[in-house]
């Protein structure tokens, strides 16, 4: 004993070095035994963590895949996308072939310039003819993106020359889908545009930009790009171009250089630009271009899941505190046996970290299960969505947040001031208030506040989606089936042939017994393919004023339709008449314009019988009708200026066949709406396939969809957002319920004796229940009041991001408040009932 102080010094060192690992092993073993002995509490903690860590990690995997990971191309930080702009109108343009050559020869700041434009062609010679999304690229395109084909080869420079042999390269996905991933595709021939193309390679999977293609062909294989006109016409700016910055140059260098080149070209070739144009050019990093639309959504979601994570961490900390209070005696015994504070803290931390790592592991599994859903979501704003994975960065993230929550929950109870003597005597049965009561209540209040915030955010998102879907878009989507056909241009190469087959198709469709109305058009509302067809970029001459070539209306579209289009869509003609069969190619040219355009041009008089000209007075179209505004690009987007033309007078190769089967019951046996709908859909599909096959069996069909699907797809991003927020707030709700019932049960346990005394001196059941309940409700109400304030701030931000909502919404706020209040009351009721049902004698003995 004489060496008391010496032994203390030396042992400190021995302990920390040799025994740390063994201590961890011992603590771990003990912790696992405890978890098994208390499966319910363990399960609640692990699940709470798993749900929140899973949600946070899943969203992080999207953020990581889109924003943090480099674009999966070699030297991707040096890859840029170039664009020309007209600063006067703020319009963006691609490049024409001659411009590409000029930029390439003048620019010093980048090595290489690759081009791409997207076409859709019909492919013959392999199974049925199909429409194939085709990227037309220069040979250096693959090299620049560092893509090595998994089979065969890519194009050589010589194959860029006009007149080279037609070749095609398949994407990985197309090869899998159409050729079952067979190796012998190389050197097989398929037919595009009346020419045989040899398959020379298969690409690996890669995030495609600017659009997803099925196959890639070289410049000379494209009938348009290979044509004399495209080679020489400076104003046919159809190409997107990529460039790779030279190692010693910066993005700014490229920006200023291409802006100068653009100005020089505009001076040299003024005829290639509209008057008054102020031409410039710029570069955007490929990565920024790929993800630019995703940021606000991703940050909203990441913030949401972090809220969820906070709620869960508060809950777990609270549960751990309750556990710790019950274990006061155990810890006092350990201390009496010589465990230092640090040693006890280590035990608590080990237990807590074990739980949080278990939760984190399970959370990763949840994140993995939700990955496909999130990829679909992310595909709404970036082609990089396909690159989202649970990679090592995401796993590290999950590990870090699990560890953080484990450390918080493990360390907070260590700060308890433990009175060893009384803990050893009473076994930790102390009063609630001296037992972290304040901290515990504070954590619960935070949970309520955060849950309310989440719930209200979800409510606002749902309301926004609802507003979006319920807005009067100027048409009714129900019962309309659509088939898109892109007429094979090598067969239907003049207006007359195109109109002839269009007319025949329409005639046959109208014979179908269940079709109540039908029409043809070039595009239709929420059509993702044809939305930008028929864009008018020149000034239009009006009959009652002088022509001003600078007066170019933005967002003006030419929409060829047949008669019956508005009736099929249930859109209202406000003035004049619909087209009729008499408005054919021999009759005077007619047009119907939408209300917005009519008001723009003739605010004080009727537009009917006015005439307009697209060619400065050579041909005139008489306005015969004014139709209500149709939201063509989703309800959130303002209607554009629309000029409808009689299809007979303006035939198109892009046909949409719209058939309304309202009120029709093909078999007369399906009473329910959805069944009838599906029946209508599949019957229509089959019938129209037959019609077209009979008219031309080499004409492929492009796309089937119902108008309702098109409308739904147009809000899919908002719907995903609403679904995610609903899932997250449901998780928050569940966690908060477990939190409030945990805290209340614990409080009731501590106050059992007090309750016994109260009942012994005459309190009845109702009084006891009221006592407990009022305590819980008091905490809830404080939490909710704070929550209203934080919900208002989050709502304020959401209102800037979402369609048509205000930060405050009476219905949503009160629904969320009542929901939480009711749920919390129910969660308190159970422990209150239990407390009131304990026989007073037992309650009194409980100490």
């Amino acid at each position: 004993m004489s060496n008391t102080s010496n032994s203390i010094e030396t042992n400190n060192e021995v302990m920390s070095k040799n025994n740390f690992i063994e201590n961890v092993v011992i603590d771990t073993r003990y912790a696992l035994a405890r978890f098994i002995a208390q499966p319910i509490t363990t399960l609640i903690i692990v699940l709470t963590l798993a749900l929140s860590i899973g949600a946070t990690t899943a969203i992080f995997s999207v953020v990581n895949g889109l924003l943090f990971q480099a674009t999966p191309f070699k030297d991707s930080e040096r890859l840029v996308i170039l664009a020309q702009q007209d600063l006067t109108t703020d319009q963006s343009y691609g490049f024409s072939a001659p411009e590409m050559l000029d930029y390439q020869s003048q620019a010093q700041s980048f090595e290489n310039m690759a081009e791409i434009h997207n076409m859709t062609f019909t492919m013959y010679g392999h199974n049925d003819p199909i429409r194939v999304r085709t990227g037309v690229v220069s040979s250096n395109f693959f090299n620049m993106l560092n893509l090595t084909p998994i089979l065969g080869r890519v194009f050589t420079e010589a194959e860029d020359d006009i007149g080279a042999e037609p070749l095609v390269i398949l994407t990985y996905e197309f090869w899998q889908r159409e050729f079952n991933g067979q190796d012998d595709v190389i050197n097989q021939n398929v037919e595009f545009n009346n020419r045989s193309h040899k398959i020379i390679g298969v690409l690996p999977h890669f995030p495609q930009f600017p659009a997803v293609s099925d196959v890639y062909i070289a410049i000379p294989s494209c009938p348009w790009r290979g044509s004399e006109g495209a080679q020489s016409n400076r104003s046919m700016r159809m190409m997107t171009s990529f460039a790779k910055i030279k190692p010693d140059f910066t993005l700014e260098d490229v920006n200023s250089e291409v802006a100068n080149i653009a100005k020089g070209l505009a001076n040299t070739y003024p005829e290639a630009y509209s008057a008054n144009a102020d031409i410039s050019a710029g570069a955007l990093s490929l990565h920024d271009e790929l993800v630019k639309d995703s940021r606000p959504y991703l940050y909203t979601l990441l913030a949401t899941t972090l809220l969820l994570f906070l709620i869960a961490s508060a809950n777990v900390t609270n549960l751990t505190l309750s556990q710790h209070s019950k274990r006061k005696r155990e810890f006092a015994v350990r201390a009496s046996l010589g465990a230092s504070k640090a040693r006890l803290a280590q035990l608590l931390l080990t237990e807590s970290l074990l739980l949080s790592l278990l939760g984190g592991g399970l959370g990763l599994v949840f994140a993995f299960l939700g990955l496909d859903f999130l990829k679909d979501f992310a595909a709404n704003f970036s082609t990089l969505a396909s690159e989202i994975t649970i990679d090592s960065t995401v796993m590290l993230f999950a590990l870090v947040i699990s560890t953080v929550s484990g450390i918080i929950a493990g360390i907070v109870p260590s700060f308890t001031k433990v009175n060893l003597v009384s803990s050893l005597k009473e076994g930790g049965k102390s009063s609630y208030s001296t037992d972290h009561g304040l901290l515990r209540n504070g954590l619960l209040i935070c949970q309520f506040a955060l849950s309310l915030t989440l719930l209200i955010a979800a409510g606002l998102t749902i309301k926004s989606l609802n507003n979006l879907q319920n807005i009067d878009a100027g048409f009714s989507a129900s019962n309309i089936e659509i088939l898109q056909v892109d007429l094979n241009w090598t067969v239907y190469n003049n207006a007359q042939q195109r109109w002839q087959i269009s007319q025949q198709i329409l005639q046959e469709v109208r014979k179908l017994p269940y079709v109540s109305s039908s029409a043809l058009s070039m595009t239709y509302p929420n059509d993702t393919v044809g939305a930008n067809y028929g864009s008018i970029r020149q000034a239009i001459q009006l009959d009652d004023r002088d022509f001003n070539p600078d007066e170019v209306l933005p967002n003006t579209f030419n929409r060829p339709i047949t008669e019956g289009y508005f009736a099929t869509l249930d859109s209202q003609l406000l003035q004049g008449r619909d087209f009729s069969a008499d408005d054919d190619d021999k009759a005077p040219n007619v047009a119907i314009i939408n209300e917005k355009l009519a008001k723009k041009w003739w605010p004080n008089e009727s537009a009917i019988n006015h005439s307009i000209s697209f060619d400065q007075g050579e041909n005139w179209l008489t306005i015969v009708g004014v139709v209500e505004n149709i939201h063509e690009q989703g309800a959130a987007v303002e209607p554009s200026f629309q000029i409808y033309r009689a299809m007979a007078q303006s035939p198109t190769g892009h046909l949409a066949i719209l058939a309304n089967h309202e009120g029709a019951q093909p078999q007369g046996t399906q009473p329910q709406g959805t069944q009838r709908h599906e029946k209508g859909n599949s019957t229509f599909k089959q019938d129209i396939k037959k019609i077209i096959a009979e008219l031309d069996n080499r004409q492929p069909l492009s796309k089937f969809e119902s108008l309702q699907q098109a409308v739904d797809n147009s809000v899919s991003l908002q719907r995903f957002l609403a679904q995610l927020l609903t899932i997250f707030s449901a998780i928050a709700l569940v966690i908060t319920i477990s939190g409030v019932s945990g805290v209340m049960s614990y409080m009731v346990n501590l106050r059992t004796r007090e309750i016994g005394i109260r009942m012994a001196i005459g309190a009845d059941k109702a009084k006891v229940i009221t006592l407990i309940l009022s305590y819980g409700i008091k905490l809830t109400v404080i939490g909710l009041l704070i929550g209203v304030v934080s919900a208002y701030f989050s709502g304020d931000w959401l209102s800037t991001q979402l369609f048509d909502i205000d930060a405050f919404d009476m219905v949503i706020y009160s629904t969320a408040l009542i929901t939480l209040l009711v749920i919390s009351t129910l969660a308190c009721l159970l422990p209150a009932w239990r407390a009131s049902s304990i026989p007073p004698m037992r309650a009194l003995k409980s100490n």
Partner: protein
Amino acid sequence: MTNKKTLINISKLNKIYHTDGTATNALKDIDITITQGDYVTIQGPSGGGKSTLLSIIGLLDKPTSGDYQISGVSVTKLSESQMAKVRNREIGFIFQDFNLIGDMTVSQNVELPLIYRGIAKATRQAKVIEVLKRVNMSERAKHLPNQLSGGQQQRVAVARALVGNPTLLLADEPTGNLDSVNGDSVMQLLSELNEQGVTICMVTHDSRYAHLSKRTINLFDGQVVDNTDNEQKNGTSNNKVDDREVAELMPNAITSSASSLVKNTSTVGA
């Protein structure tokens, strides 16, 4: 006694509890010496300060003032972790309600002080087996505490207190929760241990057991009122009766002779 080494030396020790504005003087100017191999019983009425004294001796609590030395080293200024170390190496505790850790087996409970001391696993296991044999609990090594009777639990607690070869064994009413048969056997065990050289300091209000010890200290209202050497009295039954009177009469009605001993009016805390 003169040739024995002084183990515990307490002088002018005071402990004052402050609760809600009232101060409870639980120990007043206590002077106690315990030598190696001693067997001391602390007796006295409830609230007399017995447990408080034992907690301070066991370094579970700190005195308000006064000096406390173990083997000549003052321990009143030790840090919290140094106190833990001393508890671990020098002191073994036995409690009234056993205080075994419920989710641990008998051998895990007994092993715990050795783990905290950082002893290698092989040594630990050997020591646990040895000490369980010593308290006759070898067969129950893999049992959980709630699978044992009270007496058995207390034997395990004794084993746990002994396993690290402490210089001092402290026991606060070790028989308080046991029936007489089990109580007797635990007391028998303590006597044997003392014969084997273990220094014991025990609080009990059961005067039947006081005669087993070598010395009895009577605490009344925080003060030592009697410090009797039982070996010199040679186990006469006289002071057993005295003890019982003090123990049983004082809490109920403070007799005039007793109240004359009270210097400060003290408040009995809740």
